[in-house]
């Protein structure tokens, strides 16, 4: 059952004709070609598929396209600020917050949304916010460090 939906995708108004049952994750990857968003588990447990929906991080593997008319969607491809990487992206590179990189798009979307809400989080708050994002590689310490460094950078920018 095809359905026409109008969404804003990474800032661009877009009309899509999609089967209502297609999951947002598959819509992004297979129909639109935005393959930055990853599928780990497909069941809401790993966070690799995290995107921002109306400004809030959600699991794109659990959302039907047919629910999305009018939605504002931001994926990892929309995280850059102009030509520049977002401070969370720079910090993950600098601190070794990514190894194989599979969890990284989800981690970055979650980290961005945490820092939008809480510019100066404790390590505990970072771990709480990222508890739905699994990483098999890093052991998390460098991810927490990267989020702290990005937070400091963002605070300095705001002050400066």
């Amino acid at each position, binding site marked *: 059952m095809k359905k026409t939906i109008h969404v804003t995708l990474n800032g661009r108004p877009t009309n899509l004709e999609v089967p209502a049952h297609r999951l947002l994750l598959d819509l992004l990857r297979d129909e639109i070609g935005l393959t930055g968003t990853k599928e780990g588990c497909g069941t809401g447990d790993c966070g690799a598929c995290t995107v921002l929906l109306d400004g809030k991080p959600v*699991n794109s593997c659990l959302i039907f396209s047919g629910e999305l008319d009018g939605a504002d969607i931001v994926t990892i491809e929309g995280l850059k600020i102009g030509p520049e990487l977002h401070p969370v992206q720079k910090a993950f590179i600098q601190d070794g917050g990514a190894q194989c990189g599979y969890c990284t798009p989800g981690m970055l979307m979650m980290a961005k949304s945490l820092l939008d809400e809480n510019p100066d989080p404790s390590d505990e708050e970072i771990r709480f916010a990222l*508890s739905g994002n699994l990483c098999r590689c890093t052991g998390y310490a460098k991810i927490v460090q990267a989020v702290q460094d990005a937070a400091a950078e963002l605070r300095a920018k705001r002050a400066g």
Partner: protein
Amino acid sequence: MRRPEPLEIFQPTSIREAGALVKEKGPGGRFLAGGTDLVIAVKEKSFSPKYVVDLKRIPGLSGIREEADGGLKIGSLTTLREVEISPIILKRFPFLAQSAAEVGSVQIRNRATIGGNMANATPSADVAPALLALEARARIAGLNGERVVELEQFFRGPGQTVMAPEEILTEIIIPPANPSLVGEYIKFSPREMMDLAYIGVAVAFVFNASQKLCEKVRIALGAVSPTPMRARGAESLLEGQVLTEELAEKAGAEAARECKPISDVRSSADYRRDMVRVNTKRALLNAAAQRPGKWTERRDRRY
């Protein structure tokens, strides 16, 4: 991971329209709120709904309101993240906010609704014990009007509620509470996050801190019977009594006696019973101590 079969998704804009759709389209359809239970049922349990009726376009079904009499109304489509961070809930019933915060991850809670947590009627639903301890009621809208039922009567068994297929849970009603009400929720699970409760215990009582006197004691348990349940025997042991560690221990033992756990992949029935005993005691003492600070800092699940 399995993908959903083609299906039609309707987005009605009134309760009446939503109910009428289900009546017209017949059996095999489902309402959709956050989808965090429904999409899992489709993907993991091979459930194929014939059609889906999305409730999110119906105005007025979400939000948290304080009533003039001191009661609280929580719209069924209010997300668990909204419950978790709501200033009014954090102030009045911090253990309810905490029970919402214990569900899944931030991403899940941004979608998962309080109504979905009740309507799905999982015995381990984390928000149910806190709501039972607050003696919450459920407002249900059908094609022929509304009814209000005690949440305790709302659950009928695993996945079963009193609602007919075309009925919609519209609101959770928390009756006015005494300002000296204290409470606590403990989700017992081996992992701190992203795990389902092996058992859950919520307690709420009116506490006279200087005399340590407990009144209106309510104890509710999750994941230890076909529905979330009240532990009335344990409640009556404490009613009108001075709370001591010995009495809390006795109440825990009584709660363990009256619950009806089963053994499954998560835990044996015996272990669940013992965890009810320990954590009921702990919840009572924690509630009475009213320790400040965040629950993530004071939670104590490791032995």
